[in-house]
């Protein structure tokens, strides 16, 4: 298993963002669904080794990222797209992707080819020498995805990757996700249910820091059948039904 989380908890002061999450994920595309504030981003940041868990056990790519050497090894094989991607306005797309390839400790000789491949994969080849400040929001998002995949990661963590992408780009991006999912563990945090239905092999639904559903998209869809839950698509109705059930048993959550 590339990701093993056992009773993982993260608190910020008195707020518990992630509460006792236990999860395993191997190769494939894993969707993390949930409403705003459910704890998806905090969970992803822990898996990206940006923040440590308050308690619980975290193993990534078979290593404990709590100490320096394994953490560095994990980070070499990690791709991460944060929710809000900061960028250097004066960098070109190629500079930006190359910068993070170097920070990922890639062998310098391999960097130019990897940068070119990543930029082409996200369809930014014609804007590779454009300054980031001149790009649209969707293009910036794709530049962010390019830096995440430049090292051909074994673990790819994407926080709201399709935000700002137009429908055509989203379709192409889902294809890229499926391609990566053949050999790597891809975890996608999103609130767009259709992304999960189209690209994910497994899905977890978070609510108030907890996993309230874990299964396949088909199983999530089945939860909505005959429930009368709101939603335009079967998967959306499954999502709504699971959330409604989780919210109706606050005592059980406590």
């Amino acid at each position: 298993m590339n990701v093993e989380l056992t009773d993982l908890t993260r608190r910020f002061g008195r707020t518990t963002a992630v509460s006792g999450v236990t999860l395993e994920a191997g190769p494939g595309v894993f969707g993390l669904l949930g409403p705003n504030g459910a704890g998806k981003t905090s969970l992803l940041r822990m898996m990206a080794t940006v923040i440590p868990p308050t308690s619980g056990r975290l193993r990534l790519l078979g290593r404990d990222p709590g100490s320096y050497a394994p953490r560095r090894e994990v980070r070499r094989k990690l791709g991460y797209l944060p929710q809000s991607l900061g960028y250097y306005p004066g960098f070109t797309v190629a500079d930006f992707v190359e910068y993070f390839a170097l920070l990922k400790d890639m062998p310098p000789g391999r960097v130019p080819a990897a940068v070119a491949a990543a930029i082409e994969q996200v369809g930014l080849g014609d804007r590779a020498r454009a300054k980031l400040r001149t790009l649209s929001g969707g293009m910036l998002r794709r530049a962010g995805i390019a830096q995440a995949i430049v090292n051909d990661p074994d673990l790819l963590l994407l926080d709201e990757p399709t935000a700002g992408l137009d429908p055509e780009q989203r379709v192409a991006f889902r294809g890229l996700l499926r391609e990566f999912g053949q050999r790597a563990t891809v975890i996608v945090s999103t609130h767009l249910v259709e992304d999960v239905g189209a690209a994910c092999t497994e899905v977890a639904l978070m609510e108030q820091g907890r996993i309230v559903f874990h299964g396949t998209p088909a199983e999530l869809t089945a939860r909505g059948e005959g429930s009368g839950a709101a939603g335009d698509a079967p998967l959306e109705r499954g999502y709504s039904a699971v959330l409604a059930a989780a919210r109706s048993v606050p005592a059980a959550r406590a």
Partner: protein
Amino acid sequence: MSGTDAGPPDVDLGRVWLAVAAQVWRREPGWAERAARRLLRSPGLARALVTTPSLLLGWLIATAVVLAAGAVATLGTGTPYVPLLAPAVAAAGIAYAYGPGIDPAWELSRSMAVSDRMVLLVRALAVFGLNAALGLAASAASGVTAAVTFGWLVPMTAACALALAAATLAKSANVGVAVGLAGWVITVLSGNAAAGRLTTAVTDSALVLPYLAFAVCCGAIAAYATRITRGTS
């Protein structure tokens, strides 16, 4: 992008294009980055160093202008302003070397194999070194005595360490600058009140040890604030 339809059957045009693009798009490192690569033995760290916000051209020009103005004021009035300005300018530079809100891709950088703690250390040392060099040049140009020319280096170390500790603890460059500047102003005014001279803070040799002790304490705080938390049980 296989592109094999239009080309000879044994040539993968997609791969050819990627090889061409790799060469066309690659960024040639400047002399500073090449030197940093040799010194640090890490291309990633070298690139992180040359993107330090407080080492960018605009910031360096501003630093040089402030110190040059101090040198001119010293020549005009006889009061050694450069030794009083240099620690404050360096402290601001250190606080603005790395951190959330200052480094645009800070969140992303924290997930990288090149540790952000190492990036902070290398950037802070580079900013300190460059400010020390600029300050020494300005101080020498202002024609003050040798004691005053070099006397501010230790207080500058303390002011920089204070700014770094505050910035890392508060995770805010602005807090670092505010605390560093406030600390230095209080020190200068206290020296003035005690001995009647504005330059007491940089000329009194009895203060060297306290400055160094203070700098070590602040360095320890910064190291603690940026420690690698085990975080798993």
